[in-house]
């Protein structure tokens, strides 16, 4: 009797301990983005590994991760983070290192690291997907020739109508330079010089009076759909949603698309390091990335994922082969250094 009690107690303790050991908190961006991760990443992982995955959401930045690490109270294990934030957090030593051997290899035997697109994997971040600031237009406004180049965004004669742009220097300045004839590879070099900044603002001056500035991602497709503007710079996922769910007549100008990398990081000092690494390994499998892409049109960062993406969705991906010509990868290091300065100059230019 007594023995049975002890065994029962031990079993209870044991089960509590294992339950504790196989738990994981995954933090992402909330909204439809996180909703699309639920069936494509979280549930399959939980089913396969038996780990209970708790989810939380945040609005980007490194402040929360920093305070958890510094107060030694780490409650987040894996975070879906932008490359620029991940680089900052990595610089500050807030993230666990991820090794190439932590990743699942591709079907053809390539290692996970080699399967990644350039820049999508580093010691702190395993890439998830690539989203883009992309120029889009309302097909109803341009019945004849459709815009196809960044320069067309700045050409009010050939393509009349108002433009919508994010009220922020990143995006606007890069597009202005590309429209002015700077090759994508030279954009950040040019923008690092005062003359380059001036050149960008001068180009923006040519359409300034026709620009409607937006501040939240939902505004761009709204302005396009309402007919307030004919063309817009927008987040590609929002436009995909408007086209696929709401059947809006929007077209993309992939030339000059400005691409950003999003990935998984593991918070330094997590108590569930093993489960966290398993999660990252699972979530960065080509099939998992492809399944996320099908729901959002964010480009999977592993090359072998493309084969698993729904053929109907492929043409909407920032990483699709036919869309990458003329693409520019946003330079997080450049913006970390120049954001203070260019924000100020942008504010001055706006108010002029």
């Amino acid at each position, binding site marked *: 009797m007594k023995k049975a009690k002890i065994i029962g107690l031990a079993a209870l303790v044991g089960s509590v301990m294992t339950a504790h050991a196989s738990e994981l908190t995954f933090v992402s961006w909330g909204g439809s983005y996180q909703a699309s991760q639920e069936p494509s990443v979280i549930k399959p992982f939980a089913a396969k590994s038996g780990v209970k995955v708790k989810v939380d959401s945040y609005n980007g930045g490194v402040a929360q991760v920093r305070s958890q690490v510094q107060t030694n109270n780490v409650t987040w294990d894996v975070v879906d983070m932008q490359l620029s934030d991940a680089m*900052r957090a990595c*610089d*500050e*030593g807030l993230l666990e290192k991820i090794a190439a051997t932590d990743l699942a290899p591709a079907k053809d035997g390539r290692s996970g690291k080699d399967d990644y697109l350039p820049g999508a994997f580093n010691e702190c971040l395993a890439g998830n997907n690539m989203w883009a600031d992309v120029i889009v237009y309302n097909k109803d406004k341009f019945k004849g020739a459709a815009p196809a180049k960044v320069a067309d965004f700045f050409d009010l004669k050939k393509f009349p109508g108002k433009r919508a742009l994010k*009220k922020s220097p990143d995006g606007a300045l890069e597009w202005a330079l590309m429209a002015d004839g700077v090759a994508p590879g030279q954009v950040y070099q040019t923008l690092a010089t005062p003359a380059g900044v*001036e050149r960008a*603002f001068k180009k923006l001056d040519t359409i300034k009076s026709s620009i*409607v*500035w937006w501040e939240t991602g939902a505004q761009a497709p709204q302005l396009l759909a*309402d007919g*307030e503007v004919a063309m817009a710079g927008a987040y590609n996922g929002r436009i995909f949603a408007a086209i696929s769910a709401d059947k809006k007549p929007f077209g993309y100008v992939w030339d000059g698309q400005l691409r950003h990398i999003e990935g998984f990081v593991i918070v330094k000092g997590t108590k569930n390091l093993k489960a966290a690494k398993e999660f990252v390994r699972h979530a960065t499998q080509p099939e998992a990335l492809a399944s996320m892409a099908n729901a959002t049109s964010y480009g999977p960062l592993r090359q072998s994922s493309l084969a698993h993406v729904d053929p109907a969705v492929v043409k909407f991906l920032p990483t699709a082969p036919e869309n990458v010509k003329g693409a520019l990868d946003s330079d997080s*290091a450049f913006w*970390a*250094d*120049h954001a*203070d*300065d*260019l*924000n*100020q*100059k942008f*504010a*001055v*230019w*706006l*108010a*002029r």
Partner: protein
Amino acid sequence: MGDAHVTGGRSLKSKLRRAERMEQVKAYLLILPLFAFLLICFLLPIGALLVKGFTDPTLSDELPRAAAMLREWEPAGGEVPDEEIFATFAKDLAASRPTDGASRVAKRLNIDQPGMRTLILKTANKLDTVEGATWRDKLVSIDSRWGAVATWSTLKYAASPWTLGYYIKALDFTRDERGEIVQQPEGQRLYRDVFVRTAVVSLSVSVICLLLGYPVAYFLAALPARYSNLFMIMVLLPFWTSILVRTTAWVVALQSNGVINALLIRLGVTEDGFALIYNRFGVLVAMTHILLPYAILSLYSVMKGVPVIYVKAARSLGAGPIRAFFQAYFPQTLPGVAAAGMLTFILAVGYYITPAIVGGPSDQLASYYIANHVNTTLNWGLASALASMLLVGVLLLYAVFVRLTGGRGAKLG
């Protein structure tokens, strides 16, 4: 007997005094919570704000010895600092790494000079492995910028825990590499225009409020009470409605496919509608609408006290209606005009959300930039400098105004 009387009188007097003092203490005790409230919720935050605009503790906290030496160093000579400063800086930077001090220094310096972030982080990472005979050689071999005076003068002017740097920036000045305070280049001047714009918009709004509010207040004051109450409610209803709701209502009314434009297009006045919003016009309309009740109420309270008999006397002595109004009535309402003007002006100066919603990029007032530096760029020092300048500006205007009007009616408190 007489003595006794005097002593008695004295003791009575002192008793009385003591009783009075007790009463005073009790009175003070009663308003003690008020004082505590004022202190905690008003004076302390404002004091902290004023101080924040002058403090810049990052470098002196994170790199204490190097900061102290840099404060003594003079960039005007055009020479980089000597080896001792290089070595101390390297040691301080190395010591700051475990607590992430280096990244705080990097973030702080990047505000003054783009690129300093990378420079500091890169230097901090390579300190242990770099080779060279002197620290100067080592740092320059990590990055050639360490051989430039400009880099060190950026450090120097961030090295003191007390600074005028935020005010220099808030007035559109900057320091050149020799430390001279010079005007910002044309393309980077922002805040002087912002303050002028804030003053112009606020002044326009208060003038429009007076022009529109005066007749309304006059009408309300002249009506018998049972009618005027009804109209008063019509003034007060919008006054009680949330600012955000009223501003958004203007967006609905003024936008390019909005109510007003739709009507104008239907009437054939215009073909594509007028630009009524996201420009100065929209800001003036919405702000005037929001501030009008303040003007009407302050005018009304003064007009209620003006006896009608003067105008009647003026008329009976032969003045026409216009002359009677301007000579007998209007001068008596001046304190109300002054109070209404001052009140609407001061409220308008602090407006933020209304111009943000209905204004264009060139219609944002000072508060927008203060909020931007508090929330987005996290440059609280600059935000505090801008806020203090706004506060001092308003207090100065108020002082001048009280002096001009002799304090009649315009005292806010």
